[in-house]
């Protein structure tokens, strides 16, 4: 299948600091791809370069067949962006925000009038169509930003942390609508800090840190490659009789990764305090990017 986004050797330096140092990526049409990485890993800068909002210092990008910094208007109109920070128009109503965006996309008034109610309905905002944006809850604002990005009926939707700060109900609702967009054949590229979100939505994941791709693949591939299928978190002191092959010391406890869990459970002394769960993307993420806090 044809790639909708292709980037190679992408680099960006801001005043001597390398924010992105050599990212390659290829995204096929109709897929949902997640960029995962700690704060400051270079995810947002990468997305801004793909949108043509930031000129790469080095490297080559093709998005929908065009170079982002000199993208023809027709190509630009096929992309919708959900930015990380909320930049809705606080003084306008919900409906006016969508209408204004329709005009920025160059849509005819008749098309705007047709699309706005559909999008309000899609994001369950019809009841609040006349409300001032400044009176909306965080979840509603986020839904409106998503509806706004869809005004031009884009083929490619770029989402920078679409559900950060939302309650579980709002997140589930947004996930459902993103999966609906995927079923319509749209290509989605998203960043997130939520591993469950990435596992649920993404066909492919790129783990990014320090401006470079650490590894990429399906969530299952990544788990298989970097950790084992089961995780046992065992409180210290550790029982001596355990086979401690792949472990990670957390201080008060130890994570033990194993493929076969039965023999370990049998070898565990009865007084041991432990928790058993399947390995997930978060284990991969922490293994690849380390446990140290990034913003100190």
């Amino acid at each position, binding site marked *: 299948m044809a790639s909708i986004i292709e980037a190679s050797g992408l680099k960006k330096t801001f005043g001597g600091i390398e924010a992105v140092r050599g990212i390659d990526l290829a995204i096929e049409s109709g897929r949902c791809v997640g960029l995962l990485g700690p704060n400051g890993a270079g995810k947002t800068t990468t997305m801004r370069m793909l*949108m*043509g*909002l*930031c*000129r790469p210092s080095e490297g080559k990008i093709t998005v929908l067949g065009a170079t982002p*910094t000199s993208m023809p*208007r027709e190509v*630009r*109109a096929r992309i919708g*962006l959900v*930015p990380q*920070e909320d*930049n*809705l*128009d*606080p*003084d*306008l109503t919900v409906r*006016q925000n969508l209408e*204004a*965006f329709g*005009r*920025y*996309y*160059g849509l005819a008034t008749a098309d705007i009038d047709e699309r706005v109610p559909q999008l309000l309905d899609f994001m369950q905002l019809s009841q609040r169509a006349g409300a001032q944006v400044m009176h909306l809850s965080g979840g509603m604002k986020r839904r409106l930003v998503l509806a706004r990005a869809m005004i*031009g009926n884009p083929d490619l939707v770029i989402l920078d942390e679409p559900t950060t700060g939302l309650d579980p109900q709002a997140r589930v609702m947004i996930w459902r609508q993103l999966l609906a967009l995927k079923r319509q054949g749209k290509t989605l590229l998203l960043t997130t800090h939520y591993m469950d979100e990435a596992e649920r939505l993404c066909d492919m994941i790129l783990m990014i840190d320090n401006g470079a791709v650490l590894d990429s693949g399906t969530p299952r591939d990544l788990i298989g490659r970097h950790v084992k299928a089961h995780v046992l978190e065992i409180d210290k002191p550790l029982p001596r009789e355990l086979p401690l092959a792949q472990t990670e010391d957390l201080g008060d406890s130890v994570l033990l990764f194993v493929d076969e869990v039965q023999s370990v459970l049998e070898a565990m002394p009865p007084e041991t305090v432990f928790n058993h769960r399947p390995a997930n993307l978060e284990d991969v993420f922490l293994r690849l990017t380390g446990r140290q806090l990034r913003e100190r």
Partner: protein
Amino acid sequence: MNTLINRYAFAVWLRNFLTWQKMVWSSLASNVVNPVIFLFAFGFGLGSVIETMAGVPYLAFIVPGMMAYGAMFSSSFEATVSAYARFQMQRTWDAMLSTPLTLSELLVGELVWSACKGMLSCTAVLVVAAIWGGVSSIAGGLLALPVLMLASLAFAGCGLAATAFARNWEFFSYFFTFWITPMFMFSGVFFEIGRFPDFIQVFAWILPMTHLVEVIRPLMIGLALQPLDVLIHLGYLAAVTVVSFIVALYRLRRRLFD
């Protein structure tokens, strides 16, 4: 320029208009009442001391100056403080630039919108002054409006250029101290600039405001105008518009995209 005045630039203008509509009263207060207060204070206060200037009653002399001041202050304010709020606080510009709309279209929309705010102010001064009997020639007053529009574009362009360089709100205190205040004091709003020492006169001619006042005052008080002089003044205002717009565009292009 021609291709920049299109429906995308209009979309930016319309967005500002819709927002303005919602706070029309507070907006009118600053844009209209402010110059009108000045008009009364100087027209009647100072006018009772100074009987005539340039051969006309002081009130008639000061009305064109107050119209110029209203246009200058409102368009400059909109292109700096208000535009900076959209740019850096509300991030409205970021949202716009994530769509097919280009930076130059965004700036054309902001430029024309800011100039319209200037027109709102000076038109209000004209109406109030006409009712008060301070406008001897209504035709002259109406003829002054297109000149005021051109000058408002020049003021808005300079404001956008300042916004393109501004890193914080404090930056605008320089803009008001070193740009707005001199145009208020040295450009002939209150008295003819011929009364200043030469070096101030040279400086005054750099300011677009001086060229504006120099055209609209004779128009409104019925003095003769040399066509060539008018052409030079209008040409200067047009040049300031174009140059300041290009400076704003290039500065913002580097600031936003590099």
